[in-house]
């Protein structure tokens, strides 16, 4: 899945940094010179799950401009509500098409409307 996401956002012109899990993501963000524009976050990760990561990023003023998108197989209505309430901007349920991902990023203003791969 990480490979697929890397390919999609890479083709859209993003530079991609990967992290193994939520904890590793926070460590990477803490050391990053530039705050990334976008984080694609799985719900199920060891050490710190996606919901915890969203909450931690939202609690950090330095990272407040980041756009957070959950990309996960977790598809219960209540989970989507929780992720959005925690501060995720969007929620993409697996399986998805690359076109659907591009549309979501367009909704968030990260790629031009009508962009395609």
């Amino acid at each position, binding site marked *: 899945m990480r490979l697929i996401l890397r390919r999609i956002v890479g083709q859209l012109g993003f530079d991609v940094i990967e992290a193994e899990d939520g904890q590793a993501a926070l460590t990477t963000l803490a050391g990053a010179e530039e705050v990334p524009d976008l984080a694609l976050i799985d719900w199920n990760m060891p050490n710190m799950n996606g919901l915890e990561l969203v909450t931690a990023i939202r609690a950090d003023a330095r990272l407040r401009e980041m756009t957070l998108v959950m990309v996960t197989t977790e*598809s*219960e*209505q209540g989970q*989507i*509500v929780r*992720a*959005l309430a925690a501060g*995720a901007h*969007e*929620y*993409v*349920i*697996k*399986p*998805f*098409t690359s*076109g*659907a991902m591009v*549309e*979501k990023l*367009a*909704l968030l203003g990260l790629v031009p*409307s*009508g962009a395609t791969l």
Partner: protein
Amino acid sequence: MTLSATDFSFVSGLVRREASIVLGPGKEYLVEARLLPVARQAGAASVGEFLAGVQQRSDPTAVRDIVNALTTNETSWFRDREPFTALTESVLPDLLRARAASRRLRVWSAACSSGQEPYSLAITLQQFLPAGWSYEIVGSDISSEMIARAEAGAFSQVEVNRGLPANLLVHYFERAGAHWRIASSLRRNISFQRLNLAAPLPSLAPFDLIFLRNILIYFDVDTKRTVLRNVGKLLRPDGWLFLGAAETTIGIDDSYERVAAGRTSAYRLRAAVPAGIAGMG
């Protein structure tokens, strides 16, 4: 295996007759790809074998299946975005003034496919209209299969990922097994019916807003003219018509005027355009 010229000519003639859709040369692959599941369903080993059977005997079910398979298209929520932005930024404010007395809007999604467009319109209206207003949406399509799907209002996870913001998904849908079902608050304002836009249309009350998007591109000029004339009869004199981004009335039906609508354009019946609004075309 590619389709024989005879089979392609049979299918293009049939689709042309039944749905006024032109399948020009080069669409052989599309026909083959769309008809393969239909052929398999019917127990045929290939599209060629299936079509041979259909040509030998009159089979209304097979004809309907062929038309359905070749007239359905993938669609997404709030498709192209700009028309929906235009609705909230300029068209609905205009209609709110024009319908202040009746406080009621009638909307037609004229080629609604599996229902994403009329439901997107319903969400837009639900969010925009002030208290005390009501609306009614008619969704129509040439394909009976698509109408059944739209009426069911149940969408797969792949479908709800297509352009539907997550906050609207959780607000206007309910999980139903592997699908997401449209909330009853939206469904009760929408009715669906099978319509062939190129044939004489049944008598319907006129509409304030018509979405006729990404369907004229399938028709030849004469059919486009017929469809625009048919649709124009159902558009209120001060109503609004939205076409697909690659479609226009210009050079086809001059009873419409292209006008600015937000960052895109829409069409209004010529006599209704107030002097202050400059035509763009």
